[in-house]
């Protein structure tokens, strides 16, 4: 497998000559991989996708596709499939004609094209819809046609620009699995853009978190969630409890951070020395009520809010001066004594408390 199937090499992009939308981007995508570009709006992720598709040109740097520099190749010669945010189906053509478009411009004989179209339609389970107009289809069906159309000419690479943004929640979730399965079955390389973190976590092999024109972290979904490398990633992905403080001691792979006159034992990720400002990040499910003595961080707090969520209960606690501390407690009979205003003990392991940059 080609490790550098898609390669962004020191790519900069500016629209107005004043602000860099993408800064010095370095990104390698492996062949057959499903990579998601995740980030808030304006973080440069869509710009990257458009540069890859050929609708925007890099201001500086080069993009390589399978070893070829592609900046000077026009979009129609790149052979990259693309699914657009609003589907971009041709409204005056039937589903069949929409799918036949990329095959016709490639001068593929009709009987072969028909086979490919049948295959693509059955892949998205839309057999029998070939003669419909896009306007007669539901949003989910239009989305499937768009996916089928981007794959029908067997491209090596498919780009998807927030393709599920316009669908309702249930449909979005089922489409996520469907796209994931299609990717697994045909092994095409997919670059997917979204601002929805759960979508990214569900579908991707690797996720590139974008912020401020830069890739903050590029890693697998579990690593991204469990081991964020900076405060932005920790807060952007999933829920996060934070304590801002100052490093008072650092030794033997552990550090002590002074927070509200108490010291928290934490895992030093981006702090190096004593006196540095830091922000500790802790996932809600890593902190426990009524902890065992084995945990090296045990503090007392007061329950400020209890929200019932069916399978679990969210408890907001005021601990060490942070009244936004969230705990997720599984709903079992053992935990029925959680009451508003009660004083409780909570604890966590220092490995899970990651001392990150203070931003």
């Amino acid at each position: 497998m080609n490790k550098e199937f898609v390669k962004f090499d020191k790519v900069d992009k500016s629209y107005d000559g004043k602000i860099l939308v993408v800064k010095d981007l370095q990104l390698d995508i492996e062949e057959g991989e499903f990579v998601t570009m995740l980030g808030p709006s304006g973080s440069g992720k869509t710009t990257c996708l458009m540069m890859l598709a050929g609708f925007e040109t890099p201001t500086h740097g080069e993009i390589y596709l399978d070893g070829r520099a592609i900046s000077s190749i026009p979009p129609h010669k790149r052979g990259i499939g693309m699914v657009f945010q609003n589907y971009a189906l041709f409204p005056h053509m039937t589903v069949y004609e929409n799918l036949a478009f990329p095959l016709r411009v490639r001068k593929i004989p009709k009987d072969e094209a028909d086979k490919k179209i049948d295959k693509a339609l059955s892949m998205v389970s839309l057999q029998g819809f070939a003669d419909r107009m896009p306007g007669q289809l539901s949003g989910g069906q239009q989305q499937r046609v768009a996916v089928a159309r981007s794959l029908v000419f067997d491209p090596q690479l498919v780009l998807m620009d927030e393709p599920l943004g316009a669908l309702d929640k249930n449909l979005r979730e089922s489409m996520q699995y469907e796209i994931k399965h299609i990717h697994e079955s045909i092994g095409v390389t997919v670059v997917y853009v979204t601002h929805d973190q759960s979508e990214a976590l569900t579908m991707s092999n690797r996720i590139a978190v974008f912020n401020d024109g830069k890739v903050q972290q590029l890693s697998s979904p579990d690593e991204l969630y469990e081991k964020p490398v900076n405060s932005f990633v920790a807060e952007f992905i999933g829920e996060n409890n934070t304590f801002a403080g100052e490093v008072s001691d650092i030794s033997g792979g552990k550090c002590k951070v002074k927070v509200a006159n108490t010291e928290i034992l934490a895992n030093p990720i981006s702090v190096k020395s004593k006196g540095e400002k830091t922000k500790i990040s802790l996932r809600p499910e890593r902190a426990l009520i009524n902890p065992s003595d084995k945990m090296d961080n045990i503090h007392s707090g007061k329950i400020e809010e209890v929200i019932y969520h069916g399978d679990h209960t969210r408890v907001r606690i005021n601990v060490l001066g942070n009244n936004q501390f969230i705990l997720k407690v599984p709903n079992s009979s053992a935990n029925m004594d959680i009451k508003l205003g009660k004083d409780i003990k909570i604890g966590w392991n220092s490995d899970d408390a990651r001392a990150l940059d203070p931003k």
Partner: protein
Amino acid sequence: MSSETQKILTTDGIPLEVSLKKAERRNKIKAFLLVAPLLLFLIITYVFPIGDMLMRSVDDKMVTEMLPKTFKAMEKWDGKELPEEEVFAAFHEDFKKLVEEKREGKLSTQLNYTKNGFKSIIKKLRRKSKSFEEGNYKEQIMAVHKRWADVEYWKAIKRRAPAITGQKYLKGMDMYKNESGEIVSVEEDRRIHRILWLRTLEIAFFVTLFCFLMAYPIAHLLATLPMKYSNLLMICVLLPFWTSLLVRTASWMILLQQQGVVNDFFVWIGLVADDARPEMMYNKTGTYVAMTQILLPFMVLPLYSVMKTISPSLMRAGKSLGGTPIVAFWKVYFPLTIPGIGAGCLLCFILAIGYYITPALVGGASGTLISNQIAFHMKSTLDWSFASAMGLMLLAGVLAIYWVYNKLVGIDNIKLG
């Protein structure tokens, strides 16, 4: 008991249908009252005038009213030999009355339209008829002039009997009904209207074509440029709209005349010699140039409104799927603009076909249109019935184009905004 036949009742027992109608009635009345002024306005300003024009164009009551008894007597006449005494007597009676009312001059004018030679013999008849004796009018009238004894003249009178006539329409097509009632064309050197009709269609067609060729890129630019530039361009497109038609035409005259700006420029860049300046006005060229400029906004605006709704991602999709920019444009973008093209072309063509001021000012002899001919008959010859007939023919032509368009493209596909 089947549920289909059972009427649904509201809670107080009134059938649902009745209750619904009652609830909606107030709104319906309100809605009608709101459109009523417009409806009234349309009837008064549009339906009545066109109806009146239709009446005028076929109206031929004048002679029918002047010779009522004659035409009654003529009903029995077979129209081959000279009519019987009965007809002559009735004609004498009608004529006497006309002379008393001093209207015999109008009769002679009208009959002269039908056949040359009536003017003098009616004048003579008026003089002689004062001394006519009672009875045997046939002999006496035939003695006035030998034409009164010619059966052709009596046939000509009979042709004027119907109160309605289509002859103005025939005249508009350079045709007429000859003595034996056949519809024939006038001599070749007197056919002016057919040339005008064809020229009108030709100029309208080419003006529409030029407008389309120029407006398409402008509209595309308008629809795709960022807001701050597109607003400026939009003002440039609309500016001519806010200027008087006459002023715009006059400025074209300044530009296009032989000593005008355009010719000066051509001479200056050496395109033409100073003594061989081309004539660009008072001919078709002038009409084409001025009308294209004036009608351009009518093509730009419908195109723009349609292009504005086409998502730019469609062209991108076309390209990303492997279509060259030309293929993507031709297969994706262009078909989606057809409703706008249809609306723009229809609008331009219909406006061009009835254009009047511009061709009158810059058209000269070879650049005038049928509407100028209509105006000529309205103002100069005062033949309003002929002008009405040609106006209605123009209207019929427009409706025919509309019908053809509906058959070819479908009127539902039109998009004006």
